């Protein structure tokens, strides 16, 4: 893995598509709006100016009502292999605000997203990682938990372990 050691790995998977195409769907608004975000959200806004210093803005309206907006700036745009941008959750005036869907996430924390694309025989291997830019926030409990989560591969393990434990423990409620 070539991403910085201090970053949390979000995902590492292979797609049957050339890196040029994967890069394009990350860097053009009309594409990004089609796939980026949780299920059942309405993409209220998607603006992408993919060049170093360019701005990315996204607004997701959740079915439960809240609107979650991010504003970010591209740091690295190296087609078709590497992309990074730094974003924060903002209100309608671009001021840092609490993310209604992740209320414990520290307000104003800047998240550095890094996407790396490597050509493979099948298509593209994509590695996505994130880290928090502020060293003083990197130690806050929700962020430390995210890091630990990534370190033990929890996203894959949690569900399996819980399912296993529930099946095997008659005293579990």
């Amino acid at each position, binding site marked *: 893995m070539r991403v910085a050691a201090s970053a949390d790995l*979000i995902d590492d998977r292979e*797609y049957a598509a050339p890196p040029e195409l994967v890069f394009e769907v990350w860097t053009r608004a009309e594409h990004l709006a*089609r796939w980026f975000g949780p299920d059942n959200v309405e993409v209220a806004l998607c603006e992408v100016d993919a060049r170093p210093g360019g701005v990315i803005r996204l607004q997701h309206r959740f079915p439960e009502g809240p609107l979650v907006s991010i504003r970010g700036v591209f740091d690295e745009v190296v087609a078709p292999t590497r992309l990074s941008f730094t974003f924060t959750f903002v209100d309608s005036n671009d001021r840092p605000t609490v993310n209604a869907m992740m209320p414990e996430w520290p307000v104003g924390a800047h998240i550095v997203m890094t996407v790396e694309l490597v050509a493979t025989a099948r298509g593209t291997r994509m590695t996505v990682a994130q880290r928090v830019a502020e060293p003083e926030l990197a130690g806050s409990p929700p962020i430390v938990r995210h890091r630990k989560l990534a370190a033990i591969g929890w996203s894959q393990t949690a569900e399996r372990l819980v399912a296993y434990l529930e099946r095997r423990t008659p005293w579990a409620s």
Partner: protein
Amino acid sequence: MQADALSQTFAALADPTRRAILKRLAAGPANVKELSRPFDMSGPAVCKHLRVLERAGLVRRRREAQSRPCELDPAPLKEIAAWTDAYREFWDASFDRLGAYLKQLQQPTGGRHARRRKR
């Protein structure tokens, strides 16, 4: 669950031996002697791990029997799973959708974006 309790659960799970102990306890209660056997560890070393698991609320020790068997309490694990759901749903859903979208773009009869890409 309090943030501190959640952190304690994470700390308890960050060790592969403790995760193996939990897995063993998922098969049924066991005492320290039974738990130390597969791990090639001394009783005191296992007890140390058990204390961490107990503090995190993942393991209970029965008082009644002389051997004081340990049993699993999966409740904190369930809370962690609930806590991680929003995060996991966001990324897993996005990257699954990205895969489907890439496939669609590459089909000759794909969406308008696919046609627009042809030169």
